[in-house]
């Protein structure tokens, strides 16, 4: 089936052989089954090389059945004339009576020597004794014999290639699953630094598109490549074994065509790349214009949008047309090469037969070989292209799997029991920077007593999440020390530290699932009662009870749940984490005033009895905090409580006052 020319843009892997080698290496679990399948594919290909030969033998046998035995006929005629109707004659054990001889002579006299048809009619009227002698002799037994072998070949070939297809589908799917699982595990082993510096979309595309490419090509191209290579090499060998002069003719005739084809292919590459690029630009432009529709409209940008779109669209037209046209040429060209080769072989073959160098059967066999020889080449070219994109895709997947992981914590010995922790945190000359030479927290020391509230304030982009990163050991500090109840966090596992913290962030992270699943999360032994209790405390139980399935309500991108309510769910989730420390981001985004009140009350409840770090947005929180960390450009520039900081009349005082300046 001809395919429209898409996906033909060559993706160039950095190291083709390296990637393929590694890919094959990681397939070693399935090595035997793959080798077995590929052998089956090769055998099935060999069958299709052998089958034509049998088919031509079959033709030969059938041909025997249409030609009368002219030699015997000549002998009969000669003997009858010689005998002159005197007595019965015996030829090859068959007796021809005198009466038959007379009838024969009568028939011969009616034949018009100019009309060949009358000869043929003569045959069917021959007396049965002579007819039996000269009739075309088809060897039904031979035909049956060949037919059975051929049928077995066809059936076995199909069965083999089905087994191969079945196995490769199994292997490729299992392999894809393993790769996806590996990536999923890998995500948990990578430091947060990786996610902060890589796009979500990029990682996603590795897990879906790239693995899909590997999967599809493994499923099809690999076996395809083997089949076609076998066909190609096999037919070349068969041709040379049969007759080298004709083999050369066939190869030269096709070569001429192939060169032409490859020129076209390489020319079309340019258009494919161009098309892909412009299509990307165009789609991007459309996306941009549609998403910004209100602005385009209100700023009278429609005309210029149409104009720019027009230009891109027209730019696409040419490369689109050319790439479609050129890729469509492949099919007809292959057909022509096949036919051309066929004729060349026939002519050269006929010459050879005429000079007595070869037999008719050879030509028939070559007619088939020339087809077997021309077809696989374009398929091989296609397989190679897909092997390339497989290499590129696996390169990206392996690159991700090779990313540096978080350091192991096997040497960590200390453990803090969360029920016994008092809740004291000490920062001791902490220095930290995301990039090696750029320290942003320069020298921070503070002692936070159990139950105290720490407010983190600063303008947007001041690096307030840095504090979260350090407290949770998402990032390691450069120097200094952070201790919990006197134990350095360096001596505790990340898992242990996470246990001690209850964290509620601003971006309400909920996954697809029921409300229950989301609140429960990984604490699978929580009962519904406990969940509802937390919901009650947070003030969202009323809302849940009003939903059709209550806790079983599915949270897809449901429109009926506002962002405020989502925030309440995450607070309930945090509430159920019975931990001595709290990290809380107070920001409420797009929440109406009434829900905001609920959220704030819930947050206040969350802080009760916990040593809290609050990314503060409310003045009341800030004013009541035991310690305020004022951040700017990543660094903590002022510390102290509200009164102290106001007295200082520094950045904090400025920030605070700005809200109440007379404006507008």
């Amino acid at each position, binding site marked *: 089936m001809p395919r429209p020319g898409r996906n033909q843009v060559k993706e160039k892997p950095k190291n083709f052989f390296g990637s393929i080698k590694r890919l094959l290496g990681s397939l070693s679990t399935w090595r035997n089954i793959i080798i077995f399948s590929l052998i089956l594919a090769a055998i099935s290909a060999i069958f299709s090389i052998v089958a034509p030969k049998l088919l031509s033998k079959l033709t030969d046998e059938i041909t025997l059945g249409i030609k009368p035995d002219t030699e015997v006929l000549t002998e009969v005629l000669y003997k009858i004339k010689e005998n002159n109707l005197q007595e019965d004659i015996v030829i090859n054990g068959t007796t021809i009576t005198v009466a038959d001889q007379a009838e024969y002579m009568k028939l011969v006299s009616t034949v018009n020597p100019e009309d060949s048809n009358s000869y043929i009619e003569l045959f069917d009227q021959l007396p049965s004794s002579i007819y039996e002698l000269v009739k075309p002799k088809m060897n039904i037994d031979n035909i049956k014999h060949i037919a059975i072998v051929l049928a077995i070949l066809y059936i076995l070939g199909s069965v083999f290639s089905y087994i191969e297809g*079945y196995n490769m589908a199994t292997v490729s799917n299992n392999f894809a699953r393993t790769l996806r699982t590996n990536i999923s595990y890998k995500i948990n082993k990578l430091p947060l630094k990786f996610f902060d510096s890589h796009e979500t979309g990029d990682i996603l595309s590795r*897990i879906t598109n790239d693995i899909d490419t590997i999967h599809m090509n493994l499923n099809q191209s690999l076996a395809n490549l083997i089949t076609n290579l076998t066909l190609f090499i096999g037919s070349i060998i068969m041709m040379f074994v049969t007759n080298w002069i004709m083999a050369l003719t066939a190869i030269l005739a096709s070569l001429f065509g192939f060169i032409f084809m490859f020129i076209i292919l390489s020319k079309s590459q340019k258009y494919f790349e161009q098309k892909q690029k412009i299509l990307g630009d165009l789609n991007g432009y*459309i996306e941009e214009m549609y998403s910004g529709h209100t602005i385009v409209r209100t*700023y009278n940008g429609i005309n210029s949008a149409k104009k720019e779109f027009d230009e891109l669209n027209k730019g696409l*037209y040419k490369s689109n047309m050319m790439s479609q046209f050129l890729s469509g040429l492949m099919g007809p060209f292959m057909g022509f090469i096949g036919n051309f080769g066929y004729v060349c072989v026939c002519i050269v073959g006929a010459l050879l037969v005429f000079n007595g160098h070869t037999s008719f059967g050879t*030509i028939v066999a070559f007619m088939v070989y020339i087809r077997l020889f021309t077809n696989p080449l374009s398929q091989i070219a296609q397989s190679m292209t897909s092997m390339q994109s497989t290499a590129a895709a696996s390169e990206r997947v392996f690159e991700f799997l090779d990313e540096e992981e978080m350091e192991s914590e096997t040497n960590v010995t200390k453990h803090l029991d969360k029920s016994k922790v008092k809740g004291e945190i000490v920062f001791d000359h902490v220095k930290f920077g995301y990039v090696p030479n750029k320290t942003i927290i320069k020298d921070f020391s503070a002692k936070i007593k159990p139950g105290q509230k720490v407010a983190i304030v600063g303008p947007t982009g001041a690096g307030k999440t840095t504090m979260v990163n350090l407290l949770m050991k998402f990032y390691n500090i450069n120097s200094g020390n952070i201790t919990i109840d006197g134990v350095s966090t360096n001596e505790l596992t990340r898992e242990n530290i996470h246990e001690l913290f209850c964290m509620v962030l601003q971006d309400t992270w909920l996954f697809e699932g029921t409300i229950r699943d989301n609140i429960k999360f990984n604490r699978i032994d929580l009962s519904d009662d406990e969940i509802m209790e937390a919901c009650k405390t947070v003030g969202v139980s009323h809302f849940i009870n009003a939903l059709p399935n209550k806790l079983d309500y599915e949270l897809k991108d449901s429109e009926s749940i506002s962002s405020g309510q989502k925030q309440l769910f995450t607070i309930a989730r945090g509430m159920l984490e019975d931990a001595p420390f709290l990290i809380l981001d107070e920001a409420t985004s797009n929440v109406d005033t009434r829900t905001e009140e609920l959220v704030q009350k819930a947050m206040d409840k969350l802080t009760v009895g916990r040593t809290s770090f609050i990314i503060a947005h409310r003045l009341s929180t800030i004013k009541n905090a035991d310690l305020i960390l004022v951040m700017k450009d990543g660094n903590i520039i002022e510390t102290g409580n509200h009164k102290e900081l106001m007295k200082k009349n520094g950045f904090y005082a400025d*920030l605070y006052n700005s809200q*109440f300046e007379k404006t507008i």
Partner: protein
Amino acid sequence: MLKLFKNFTFKEWLIVIMCVLLTCVNVSLELRIPDYMSEITRLIQSTGDNVTHDILIQGVHMVLCAFGSLISAIIIGYAAARLSSSFSLNLREKIFNKVESFGDSEVKKFSTASLITRTTNDVSQIEILIAMGLHMVLRSPIMAIWAISKIVGKSIEWSMLTAGCVVLLLSVVIALMMIVLPRFKIIQKLIDKVNGVTRENLTGIRVIRAFNAEEFQVNRFENVNEELTGIQMFNQRLFAIMGPMMNLVMHSLVFGIYIIGAYLIYNSTLANKITLFSNMVVFTSYGMQVIMSFLMLAFIFMMAPRSQISANRINEVLDEDILIKEGKFEGTTDEQGTIEFKNVSFKYPDADEYILENISFTANKGETVAFIGSTGSGKSTLINLIPRFYDATDGEILVDGINVKDYKFETLNNKIGYVPQKAVMFTGTVEENVKYGSSLKKIAIDDVKEAIKVAQAKEFVENMEGGYHAHIARGGTNLSGGQKQRLSIARAIARKPEIYIFDDTFSALDYKTDSILRNELKKYTKNSTNLIVAQRIGTIMNADKIIVLDEGKCVGIGTHKELLKKCKVYKEIALSQLSEEELKNA
């Protein structure tokens, strides 16, 4: 689908007709090739003096035939490529232009994401169908009919066999498709799910780690992974039957024709034997063509529904009635910067409930009017009626004394500087983004610089690489939310409009920037009317007029002080954000 083809021009129809004719030529030439082959086969077997010469002549004819078929195929290919490309060119343009004329309600109805797919993927779908269609839809039936006509009446047995093979193959293909296709849809959904869970894992990485829930998430992922693998494996294993099956059937056809042929020849009179033999050779090649053609047809019928869906989706867009109609007024007005709402009510076209009810107020030149209320109170909807994202259901809105519906879009838009809640950035430079669109007066670079300065964006813009010519990535991803918002405000300022509309623009900014910006803006826009929708009391408490909305109704109009005294809803909102003491200090 047919409806879309109505867009073909006369010239394009001519090309289609030419393609049909050429396909006939192509098919007839291609089907003549087997004749030459059997002739050559016959010649090779015969023993005459001029055999080589005769073969040469036949061979040259055959090559000419093949060449003719190649040439016609190339021309058809070219025409098809041209036709499908120009078709998609025009269709894409048509959809784009239509969408550009959409108002908010139409965009919302389809959703932006869906409109994007309709303009890109759906058009490509149809383009592929046309390109393939001209190859296959035309070719297969012509080929099938032609080939059948060549073999029809030659032998009942062979015809039965061929028909049997066609039926067998088609039923296998159709049965497979029936099983596999619905599962393809499920697979698509599962792929989305795998994507979804991974996305969750990535976006919630901090939460997951904080809860030590890595294992939990891996299990969640494994469930979908398992499910996807299972169903995909089932599909592909089943699909693996297709190739061997097709091969087997086609080989069986040739094989069967030979076997039947052998028996027929064996049992017939000598006179018929030779005819039978040559018929047999012809039958094998044409029978194959018949099968291939039917197979192609089957695939086309499988493809067609998909394209049909795309065609329907495109037609929905093209047929959409646009609710907002352009007016005619394009002159200058006596009044400047005045807005009047007269008993305005609004509900969405198909909805029963009103979003806004009976709103009346006026805003005069130089005044600042603010709107506050909880989510869903209708404050954004209210100001969206001014630039006509929607039209009021009842009542009227006057800008400079003229009903907004009477303005030409461009004239009305030139009076307004609208800044949405979510800043929109376009790929291009800072300058291009601020200058965006067309306004009454051409915006010079100095205007851009001034606007950027007023919008408190000067510092970061000048720190960007390239300054005012710095590149802004698609969707403004190289800027922070606050930076985007400031540039979006600068864009409005640069137009020097009579009326500013800030739809909850300031909440993306921190308090300090917010306050400085509004201060500067106030100085700069002395002569303009400001309409501000806000969530923070701090943003609006100094407005000349505050309109408090609750569930679509106006529950209070007045200044901050007046409202604190007389409006309960306003007081509630104020108290939720500031303490009593702070309110008094203010």
